[in-house]
């Protein structure tokens, strides 16, 4: 069982390498327009600080960009990619929009729910490994059903492929944990 506390343990500030990356992003915009970097910095922050945006993380980003915390909250809650709550180790975002539905995304969603033993989209499996979410059109309409996990698209899904994917991610997690 992975406790959400473990993910919360990673807190600001950024490591020196990540801070350099963030500064590089800020420099892409004209002077005084550092707020433009917010979305990219939030993506980096989410990845660095436990897969979700805690108020603490957002306040930290506000400080980095020299803006009010509310400006970060407003932006973070507007865009659906950001997790405003702790999630499982891996988040499966299944596209549910028309073209994917035509080729069976509803069934894939049901299948994943059954596999994870959860009753609703948005829930996390009891072992804390997977959170199931749905997403609107991810631009893979010709290759559906599909899901996104992190930066990776998994396309042409079937129940068998979903099984294999889960095994793959579980293996990835245990190998990463053994290395630590």
């Amino acid at each position, binding site marked *: 069982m992975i406790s959400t506390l473990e993910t919360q343990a990673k807190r600001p500030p950024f490591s020196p390498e990540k801070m350099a990356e963030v500064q590089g992003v800020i420099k892409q915009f004209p002077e005084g327009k550092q707020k*433009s970097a917010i979305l990219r910095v939030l993506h980096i922050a989410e990845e660095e600080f436990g897969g979700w945006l805690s108020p603490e993380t957002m306040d930290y980003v506000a400080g980095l960009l020299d803006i009010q915390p509310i400006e970060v909250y407003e932006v973070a809650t*507007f*865009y659906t990619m950001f997790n405003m709550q702790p999630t499982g180790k891996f988040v499966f975002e299944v596209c549910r929009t028309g073209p994917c539905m035509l080729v069976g995304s509803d069934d894939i969603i049901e299948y994943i729910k059954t596999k994870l033993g959860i009753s609703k989209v948005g829930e996390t499996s009891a072992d804390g490994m997977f959170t199931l979410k749905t997403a*609107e*059109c991810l631009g893979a*309409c010709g290759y559906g059903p599909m899901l996104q996990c992190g*930066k990776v698209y998994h396309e042409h899904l079937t129940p068998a492929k979903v099984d294999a994917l889960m095994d793959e991610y579980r293996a990835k997690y245990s190998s990463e944990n053994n290395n630590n």
Partner: protein
Amino acid sequence: MGRKLLLEHINVPGIETYDVYRNHGGYKSVEKALKTMSPQEVVEEVQKSALKGRGGAGFPTGMKWSFLAKPEGVPRYLVCNADESEPGTFKDRFLMEKLPHLMVEGMITSSYALGANTSYIYIRGEYMFVLEILEKAIAEAYAKGWLGKNILGSGYDLDLYVAPGGGAYICGEETALLESLEGKRGNPRMKPPFPAIKGLYGCPTVVNNVESLCTVVPIINIGADEYLKIGTEKSSGTKLISACGNLARPGVYEIELGISVEEFIYGDEWCRGIANGKKIKALIPGGSSVPILPAHLITKTATGEDRFMSYESLSDGGFASGSMLGSGGFIVFDEDQCIVRNTWNFARFYAHESCGQCSPCREGTSWMEKVLHRLETGKGNMRDIDLLAEINKKIEGNTICPLGDAAAWPVAAAIRHFREEFEWHVTHPEEAVKRNYGLLKTPSITL
């Protein structure tokens, strides 16, 4: 085989890398433009090509460029709209993923034409893997001297950056995109002023779709006269069509505008007909926002003429019996599909993606979604069908940005062409619930 302008070298191994791309004629448009043409001449060439914006609205790209204000001492920006999110559309992702250097080349040539010294590609956040591909290509282009200071010794400077979104369809609307690029919520701006006058950071800005900017490359390379020979009189050139739904061979195809719809759906070179030997029931030819066409209006127009893949032919008959080429998101429905379910699905999409700024869209899209959900789940009544038609008329045209129209049109068209199916859902609620639930028809599924 039709002529390919964008995807000519798509099957060349390694075409995503600089060397291979360059060896196949890459960056020639930059050489030609910077060495032999003035910025104004590039603008005029694009105007002459009659290129229509490939993002969906079809506004002439050259005309958009000609509107750009050029006050002294104020920077101008070119922003590429790579926020591809219209359901059924996945062509821009294909272009950027497979041909990142074409995107970069298009940005350089176009930025030169507009006199922009800083340009941005705003890409949807979900395409983070594509962003990484683009940044790699940009780094290569900097290293080879195609970006940065004094490009090709011309005295022209350009910096190019990629900025990700965070998950919001509305940021495909150009002013919402600019808001987002400024680090704000993606709320569309009131127009006027248009971005050409006041865009990014209040400066004159052009926002163009990925495919439009990539198409600038062949237009400059072969010249507008040659480009105009391709396609039809009113629809010049080629267009990427992202075909999906129940097709035997879905995918991204580059067509010469003007081939017949029948050939595109059934031809061996293209989609090879409907999957699993089924019959076609309906088609949405240009992304989820455009009107759906019933079977009898797909390959023929209402007057019995052949229907072609062009701006003018797909819209023949107006909204009564036609549709739009839109973004080229070509969604095919086979005979087993439920129009009510799909209409609800799209309504849910628009309700989910409404920014919530103006009342008709915020309240109207979610109202339609709720009514359609009741109908789809066998809890609707006949009154609801008229109510839907009534709600969508009151959203259309009354909102700040076109998302209201985009949400209203699919519902209106579905009721227009498939009213019996909506009525059937009212008269046969139990069957309606059981019918058409994906591929597996999982018996355990309940709504």
